[in-house]
């Protein structure tokens, strides 16, 4: 038998630092909050602003469910303190589209059935918007790779890929009149592609 002390208190606990005023610019609107300085952006959204479209799946930057756009770049909002984002343009899923006017990614996610439980979905969609903003991904392999910071335990990955590819293709053909490059990587067999030819047996 051994003796164990959990969280040994070597001194009296300190009270939390006083709350402070933070102004966040979210989806085109200013919100002023009185919060503890170590409140994460994620908790500020969910617990103080009732913007619960942004999800918490791990609170440790491991799942991407909390992805939002800050000045057009995708970030894990659980890894950012709210106070760090004063003066930034924050966009959450609530600012992307409306019921009457869905964002093309939102429509594509419905059309391709790119979710089941829906819990990773806002993060996936914000991440996909971030990916489109970056303008780096062209091929299926690139989209897969660059969407890999967003876990989906329901396993909707093939449909997420085809939803994002559709929007990417439409955007490119619409704005730049470009067709997505064909995959050249060796793991190119994709969900949106017709069947891959069977591999020939080695002679």
């Amino acid at each position, binding site marked *: 038998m*051994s*003796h*164990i*002390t*959990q*969280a040994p*208190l070597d001194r*009296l*606990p300190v009270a*939390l630092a006083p709350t402070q005023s933070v102004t966040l610019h979210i989806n085109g609107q200013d919100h002023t909050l009185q*919060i503890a300085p*170590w*409140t994460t952006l994620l908790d500020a959204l969910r*617990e103080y602003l009732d913007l*619960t*479209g942004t*999800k918490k*799946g*791990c*609170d*440790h930057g*491991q*799942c991407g*469910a909390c992805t939002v756009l800050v000045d057009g770049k995708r970030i894990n909002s659980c890894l950012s303190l709210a106070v760090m984002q004063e003066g930034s343009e924050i966009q959450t*899923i*609530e600012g992307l589209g409306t019921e009457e006017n869905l964002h093309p990614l939102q429509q594509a996610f*419905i059309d391709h*059935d790119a*979710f*089941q*439980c*829906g*819990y*990773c979905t*806002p993060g996936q969609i914000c991440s996909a918007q971030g990916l489109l903003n970056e303008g780096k991904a062209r091929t299926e392999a690139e*989209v*897969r*790779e660059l*969407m*890999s910071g967003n876990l*989906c*335990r*329901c*396993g*909707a*990955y*093939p*449909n997420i890929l085809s939803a994002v590819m559709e929007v990417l293709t439409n955007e490119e053909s619409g704005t730049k009149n470009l067709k997505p490059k064909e995959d050249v990587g*060796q793991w190119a*067999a*994709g*969900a949106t*592609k017709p*069947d891959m*030819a*069977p*591999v*020939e*047996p*080695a002679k």
Partner: protein
Amino acid sequence: MTLQTDYIGKPTSRIDGPAKVLGTAKYAAEFNVPNLLYGHVVSSPIAKGKITKINADPVLALPGVHQVFSHENVPSLAWLDRSYKDDVAPGGSPFRPLHKPEIRFSQQPVALVVADTFELARYAASILEIEYEEEAHETELTQHIDEAFEPGRGKTGYQPPKSRGNFGRGWEQGVAHVEANYSHHAQHHNPMEMFATTVEWLGDKKLNVYDKTQGAFNSQQYIMKIFGLSKDEARVISKYTGGGFGSGLRPQHQLFLAVLASLELQRSVRVSLTRQQMFSFGHRPETLQHVALATAEDGSLTGINHFAVAETSQFEDFTENVVGWSGTLYDCKNVKLGYRLSKLDVYTPLDMRAPGAASGSIALEIAMDEMAYAAGLDPLEFRIRNYSDFDQAQNLPYSSKNLRACYREGAAKFGWDQRTPEPGSMRDGNLLVGWGMGGGIWDAQKQPALAKVSLDADGHLTVSSGSNDIGTGTYTIMTQIAAESMGLPIEAVTFVLGDTELPEAPVQGGSWTAASVGTAVQEACAKLGEQLLKQAQKMDHPAFKDAKIDDVQFANGQMRLRSDLTQAVVLRDLVQASGEPKIEAQNSKLPGMVDMIKPPKYSMHAHNAVFVEVKVDPDLMTVHVTRVVNAVAAGRIINPKTARSQVLGSVVWGISSALMEESVMDHRFGRFMNHNYAEYHIPVNADIHNIDVIFVHEEDAEVNPLGIKGLGEVGLLGVAAAVANAIYHATGKRVRDLPVTIDKLL
């Protein structure tokens, strides 16, 4: 009565899709009711021992901290074990949170700190000083095989496996033999949404409980019994569930803690678990298996022996059907089956997607591949030679079984006939290519369920049943079934679920929701049809004067005479003429109950066959699953769009189980050490490549009038084994301990 196929069988986008993509769908932790307090759970750092002291005063002295709940101050609650047993509890004595100072598993909840804000509760919980006396714990299954015992029928539905014939003789009759041990480790469900409960205090013990669960009624029963609440006081609501996979079948401890705190403090309280704490309750048990197979000259199986030992907790006997399937899937006279449990200092395991069958099929389907090689047969041909047209385990004919079509259509789509059997014989440039297959079988089950339908004067139909949608598509398929049954446009139908104020439905599990709730909806619609006909007759509508219910049909928003379709009345007009705001009907629970006690006439099962291609880097032994074809025979598919997604997800789960997933126990601490999403590996988008899903045609009038067999589990079966078999085909390395990580191939 054959159904009009207006909606059933048509790919239909999710009804709940807009809410989910807009972020307006509210999950349990997202109900921001006024004056909410936050509870944070403190988890035990030891696996076994006793709390000797809790130093709560310094924490309570912090401004904004309301209470520290622990075994020291929990009020007296229900005393009997029975009160803590939920609907799906296994045999034994359920764990009671904060009941005693004893610690029985690592991360056991030992205290709940309640404070004004989440930040404060989390901080206060982190500094709560607790002293323990630690005792030696036992968490290593391999060290406790000898103590394993045969469990009884503790849990609803569990049947000890039945042997038949004489395996010893069958083994001797065989000309080719294989025999090996197989294993996989504990796995945790890890739905994306962490477990959470928001309790809204409405005054005078009346609560709205927003719970993450797969069964609102199960949660309700649980808190009613423990806290002495009435049905009216304990309303449980669960409209959206961020994944379940079995983890939400039993009420988890955050529900108990949130309700406790709310009742004691008379305030609204939310308790959310952390991702680390998601490893503090049920999991797929580590299971050690042994399979021996023998075949005659012609490749027919002469003997099957399948034995499994699984872990359970010290306080409950969690059982699942691991080996039983091996007595059903293939034709064989001599089958010996055994299943045992060993008690460890862990939390009770819990049904996890395709419980039992997913584990059993790993061993059986790898063994079948080994047997095919030993018998000199192609793995597909070998399975076809041992096809079972009659359920020998239950001694019953199948209500339907189109596994043959799964083999045929799956193999054709995959191009299986191009396979060369020799391991290492197929290449793609430098990469080793392997093709493997597997498959499985799952019960087509049905539970009693209630549904209510209500047609209003605008012609809008509201259908309700207290079921759940954990991502399975329940909202959508029930809407399809009701729209088709009443001949209404789908936009005129609303389905509501996830609320104990609604008619009672079973927990969402076992792949039975579509069949159970679907049948209830269909029955309720049939009753509504009768009432509508009566209403037409009350109105002295000449065409319907002598009509019987079978003489009419519902289509295009009308009730029409089958013999003369021009004789029709608009449903909306019937409601308006009734003078009531709506006409309602509900099915009765009885048919399901009667079904359950009648001896079955048929064996009712869904089947699948999976074909997998892997590509392996010969130097680094990294494995990529490049193609999967999963052919499923599961009766009628109500919505091919959501059904396909369910099977896609199953394939991702199978790949995960084959290559990545494993809760790694550090036996020195008796604790799962990779208890986070970074170290508990599951596939990301880049890990998943081409997946094809085929639903083969299968009609079955026996399972239920809709012909539904259920899809939640079957798609997962055999996937992990097929991946392992493909790896063998690529590399010549037979790995029998899953997951097949690189170290096992190098």
